């Protein structure tokens, strides 16, 4: 078992320093790059926080959908292949719900401020 603080706590501490102390000292391209960097750190924190539960649920859905077990990578490759071959598609029961849920879980980590995502999440 690794000691504390956790990776999330460490990244948040660094991000807070960059945001509060470094950002005000920068301008122009360097300020832009720092914003991109902070966005990346925030994304990593979201992933570290939510990835495990999302992946577990995705594996469960994929196993049921495909009728087999395997790693997340294996199962996604199999689903891709079956869609590409025409064996599975939007007409397959449960597939649409699965890809929607998986995509929502990705957006929650990648780009939670993306307008399409917010519209779907809030149902408004």
């Amino acid at each position, binding site marked *: 078992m690794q000691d504390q603080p956790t990776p999330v706590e460490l990244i948040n501490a660094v991000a807070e320093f960059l945001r509060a102390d470094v950002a005000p000292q920068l301008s122009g391209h360097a300020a832009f790059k720092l914003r991109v960097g902070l966005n990346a750190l925030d994304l990593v924190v979201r992933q570290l926080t939510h990835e495990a539960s999302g992946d577990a649920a995705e594996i469960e859905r994929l196993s049921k959908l495909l009728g087999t077990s395997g790693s997340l990578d294996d199962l996604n490759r199999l689903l891709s292949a079956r869609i590409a071959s025409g064996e599975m598609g939007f007409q397959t029961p449960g597939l649409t719900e699965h890809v929607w849920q998986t995509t929502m879980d*990705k957006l929650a980590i990648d*780009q939670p401020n993306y307008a399409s995502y917010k519209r779907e999440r809030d149902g408004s």
Partner: protein
Amino acid sequence: MTIESAIKTGIACWFPGATGIDRLAQLSGGASQETWSFDVLHPSGNIAVILRRAPSGYGAAPGRAAGLEAEAVLMQQACEAGIPSPRVRYVLRGEDSLGSGFIMDRVEGETIPRKILRDAEFANARNMLASQLGTVIAGIHALEKSRLPKLRLMTVAGELDDLAAEYKSFDWPRPVFDLALRWLHDNAPAPADSVTLVHGDFRHGNLIIGPEGIRAVLDWELAHFGDPMEDLGWICVNSWRFGEIDKPVGGLGSREDLFAAYEAAAGRAVDVPRVMFWETLGTLRWGIMCCGMMQRFRAGPDYSMERAMIGRRASETEIDLLRLLAPRRRA
């Protein structure tokens, strides 16, 4: 020879009477293409210009690109046809030691989407732009083919093959992309009745906007011959709405306004299902381009955070593809 000395050496020849240059600055640059800005010092008034160039060794157009010489001809033809377009001042030659490229007038204005979509000074322009863009696209499609450079012909089948091959090369499963490719195959329209010049990248970032509306169409790098409906679909891809998702035309206005203006100017009916097909294809294409940025980030040498983070925007196109192809029903 540095860029600066090469420009200084050539300037009096390119702009007769010019005495030098000032305010040389690089605006953007990748491995293959650079954009520079400078002022030509001239006794009868300085001239603000832009240099687009591909350094020697990068001149050969990789894959899809029309090439800078072709771009120069296209912009000149567009300008002469009354399409908002900067005047091309000079096309580089071998003896200029600057690679391939051209010099054009610098058009002042805004290209940053968030400013165009939100700032008060563009409020008036926003009301007109969906129509204006329809008119401008019609003008591009009307350019006389016999006067244009040799460009590739894009077909739906060829484009789908290219997209599928590129997606496959990433070796990373994305079931939503597979669903989209499948849908596009199953719903591919018959070959277009009319084949025209297609700008190929008509969207925010490549349009200079002023408070009175569109001032210039830039970046003809992806121009080709093909289905004119492609440009109308691409400008409606959700990725170019920058949050204004209920205004399909670049976050500015409605499809109806775009189509009405296009039909009035082009004298050609808009085939709406065909435009929707291209919008869907365009959404997938942008997603695959995002994945490509990630690949280049990994492969180097352009190791950059921005590229890496664009890789994490591919999922934006997945949700947009699902909204197009499998919209969720709500009570």
